[in-house]
C-alpha cells in the first residue's frame, strides 16, 4: 500500500472516529480547589478513574492559592464557563447561596448526605434547610507542642489550664535563642481568629450567640487579656507570626525549626509539618486546648469544607458534576470501603467527615498526631456560619493583630471587636 493510500485511510478513520470521540467526552466539567500540586495529582487520578467508568464525562482540575479561592469563585462562578465544582469553606456558603452562585443538591444527593454524614456537618452545608454541597472534610483546632523544647524547659506535660499554659509559655521563651513560648499567627484571617476562638470557647464564651456577636462577655474579656499578657510578657512575639497567601511563612518556619514551643492549629497542617520537619516531626504532639478560668472543659473550634456546584453551569454539566461528586465521596470510589475523597484528604492529614470514611481510616486516625484531634472533635464548637461571616472574621483579625502589636489594649480590642461585629452582622442581614 502506498503512503498516499495509508494517509487517506488514516484520515478517513480519524473522521469516522471523531463523532464517537465527541460523544464519548460530551460533558466537560472543571473542579476548582486550593490544594497543592501533589494533592491535585491525586484528584486528577480519581477523576480519570471516574471518566473510565463514565466515558461521557471529562473532569479537569484547577488550583489557586487559598487566598484567591473565594475571589476566583466570585469572579468566575457567575458564568456558565466558570468552574463547575468548587471546594469551599463553610463560612462562605450563606453568601454564595444568597447570591445564587451555588446550586441546591438534587434530592438523591441530599438524602444520601443526610443519612451518611453527622447532622452537624450536614447543617454546615445547608442554608435554610436546603443542602448546597457535599461535605468532605472537617477541621478542628488543638494545641501542638514541641516535646523536645518541653523537655529542655523541664515541662513534664502539656498545659491543661490557662495558668499552666502561661507558665509553660514563659518557661519555653528564650530571647537569646530567638525562641518564643507560644506562636500566634497574623496576616491570615482564619489563622488569627480560629486559635483565639478556640481559647474563647474553652473559657465558656462564644463569638456569636443566637445570631448576635457575643464578644462583650466577661469570658471574651479574659481571652483578650490572655493575649495581652502573652504579648507583654514576651512569651509570644508578633514578628514571628506572619503568614503568606499560601498559609505558610514565618509562623510555620519558626515552629518547624524549633523556635516556637506551642501553637494552636488545625489538623490539616500535618502535611506542612511533615514536609518542613522530616524526621523531627516525631517531636510534635497534640493536646486539647487549655481551659480558661471561666471554662468547664477543653473545647475547640471546628469548621468544615464542602464541594458545591456552579448554579450558572449548564444542566448537563450540573448533572455530571453531582454524579462525579456523589461517586468521589462514596465508599465505592476509594480503598477498603473509604471514599476516594477521603483517601485524598488523609494524604494531607485532614479528617474526612463522612461517618463510613472515619471508620475506614480508623488506623491512620489513631496516629499520635491525628488522634489528639479526633479526641477533641466531640466537644468542638462549629465556627459560626452567618451572613457577613467572612467580613466579621477579617475585622476580628484586624483587632487581634492590633492587640498583638500593642496598638490597642485588651479592653479597647474587646470594645472595638464587639462594635465592628455588631455593625457588620447587622448590615449583612439587612
Amino acid at each position, binding site marked *: 500500500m502506498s503512503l498516499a493510500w495509508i494517509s487517506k485511510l488514516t484520515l478517513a478513520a480519524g473522521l469516522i472516529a471523531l463523532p464517537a470521540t465527541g460523544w464519548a467526552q460530551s460533558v466537560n466539567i472543571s473542579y476548582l480547589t486550593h490544594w497543592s500540586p501533589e494533592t491535585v495529582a491525586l484528584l486528577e487520578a480519581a477523576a480519570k478513574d471516574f471518566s473510565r467508568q463514565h466515558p461521557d464525562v471529562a473532569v479537569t482540575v484547577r488550583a489557586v492559592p487559598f*487566598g*484567591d479561592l*473565594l*475571589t476566583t469563585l*466570585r*469572579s468566575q462562578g*457567575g458564568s456558565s464557563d466558570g468552574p463547575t465544582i468548587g471546594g469551599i469553606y463553610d463560612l462562605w456558603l450563606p*453568601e454564595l447561596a444568597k*447570591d*445564587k*452562585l451555588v446550586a441546591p443538591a438534587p434530592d438523591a444527593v441530599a438524602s444520601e448526605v443526610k443519612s451518611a454524614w453527622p447532622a452537624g456537618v450536614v447543617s454546615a452545608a445547608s442554608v435554610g434547610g436546603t443542602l448546597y454541597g457535599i461535605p468532605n472534610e472537617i477541621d478542628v483546632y488543638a494545641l501542638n507542642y514541641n516535646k523536645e523544647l518541653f523537655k529542655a524547659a523541664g515541662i513534664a506535660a502539656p498545659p491543661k489550664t490557662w495558668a499552666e499554659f502561661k507558665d509553660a509559655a514563659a518557661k519555653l521563651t528564650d530571647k537569646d535563642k*530567638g525562641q518564643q513560648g507560644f506562636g500566634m499567627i*497574623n*496576616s*491570615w484571617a482564619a489563622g488569627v481568629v480560629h486559635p483565639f476562638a478556640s481559647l474563647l470557647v474553652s473559657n465558656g464564651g462564644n463569638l456569636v450567640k443566637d445570631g448576635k456577636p457575643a464578644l462583650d462577655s466577661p469570658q471574651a474579656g479574659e481571652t483578650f487579656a490572655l493575649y495581652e499578657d502573652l504579648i507583654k510578657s514576651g512569651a509570644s512575639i*508578633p*514578628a*514571628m*507570626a*506572619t*503568614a*503568606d*497567601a499560601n498559609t505558610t*511563612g*514565618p509562623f510555620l*518556619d*519558626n515552629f518547624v*525549626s524549633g*523556635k516556637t514551643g506551642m501553637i494552636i492549629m488545625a489538623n490539616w497542617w500535618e502535611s506542612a509539618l511533615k514536609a518542613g520537619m522530616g524526621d523531627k516531626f516525631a517531636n510534635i504532639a497534640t493536646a486539647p486546648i487549655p481551659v480558661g478560668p471561666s471554662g468547664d472543659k477543653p473545647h475547640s473550634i471546628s469548621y468544615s469544607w464542602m464541594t458545591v456546584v456552579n448554579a450558572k453551569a449548564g444542566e448537563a454539566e450540573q448533572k455530571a458534576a453531582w454524579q462525579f461528586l456523589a461517586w468521589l465521596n462514596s465508599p465505592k470510589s476509594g480503598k477498603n470501603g473509604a471514599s476516594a475523597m477521603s483517601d485524598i484528604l488523609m494524604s494531607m492529614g485532614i479528617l474526612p467527615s463522612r461517618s463510613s470514611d472515619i471508620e475506614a481510616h480508623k488506623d491512620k486516625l489513631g496516629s499520635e498526631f491525628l488522634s489528639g484531634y479526633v479526641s477533641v472533635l466531640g466537644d468542638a464548637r462549629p465556627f459560626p456560619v452567618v451572613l457577613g461571616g*467572612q*467580613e466579621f472574621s*477579617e*475585622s476580628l483579625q*484586624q483587632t487581634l*493583630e*492590633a492587640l*498583638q*502589636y500593642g*496598638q490597642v489594649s485588651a479592653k479597647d480590642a474587646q470594645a472595638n471587636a464587639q*462594635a*465592628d461585629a455588631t*455593625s*457588620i452582622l447587622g448590615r449583612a442581614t439587612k
Partner: protein
Amino acid sequence: MAKAFRASAGIMLAPAVTLIGVFVLLPMLLTVWLSFQDWSTQTPFSEASFVGLGNFHEIFGPTSVGRDFKTALLNTAIYTALSVVLILPLSVVFGLLVYQREVAGGTALRTVLFSTYMVPMIAVALVWSKLYSPSEGPLNQLLGLVGIGPQPWLSSPRSALVSIVLLNVWQQVGYFTVLAIAGLTQIPGSLYEAATLDGANGSEQFRFITLPLLRRTLLFSAVIAIINAVQVFEPVALITQGGPVGSTNVLTYHIRRVGIERAQGGLGSAMAVMLMLSLIVCVSALFAFVNRKDSE
C-alpha cells in the same frame, strides 16, 4: 470646504473615539454611577438601588468599613510618596553614572539595571519574601555580619510597607533610569562645553544645566511612577495579604477584597471613585507646579 473637512475628520476620528468611549469612558461612568448604588457584584445592574452619598458616608465613617478604607488610602499615599521620592533621584543618579561615555561597561550596566524591570512580579515576590524572612533571611544575616540585629521587615506594621516600597524601587528603578538616560541624551553637549569654558564645575553644571533641562523627563517619570505606585497590587496580594494589622493594605487590594470577595459593588465603586479622584488631583497638581516653574 470647511464642512467637508470637518466631516472627514469626524469619520477618521470616529473609530478611535468610539473605542475609547466604550472601553474607557463607559466603565468610568459606570463606576461613578455604581458608587451611588447599593449593589452586589453578583447581581445584574438592574437590581442596584440608589443610596445617594450613603457609600461615601460609609467609607469615611467610624465603622470598620471606614477605618479600613482610610487606612488603605493613607497606606497608598505613603507608598506612592516614598516610591516617587526614592525612584526619581536614584534614576537620575544611575542615569548620570551609566550615561558617562568614558565609563567602560556602560551598556552592560544599563542592561543589568533594566533587567530587574523584566523579572515577573511572582518571581520577585518569592525571592524577596525569603530575603526578608526575619529568622533565616539573607538580609538579616548580612546585617548580622556588620553588628546590626535582625529587623522584622514584613513582620512588623512599622516596617512592612517600607519593605514593600524597597522591593518596588528595586524593580522599577531600572526602567526610570532608561527614561533619565533618554532625557540626558536630549541635552546638547555644547552647553556643557560652554559652561566648562565659563568655569562652571560639575556640581554647577548639574544644577544649572542638567536638572532644568531634565525637568520635562522628570515630570513624565513622576507621573508614570505615581500611576504605577497607586496601582500596586501584586506584591501585597502575593506576600503580605495587606497585613500585618492592615499596614500594607493598599487601595487596589482593599477594593478587590470589598468589591469582589465580599461582592459589595457599591462600596467598592465608591472607593474606586475616590482613588480616581485622588490620582487626578495629584497629577493635576504636579502639572500645575511644573507649569508654574516653567513660566517663572
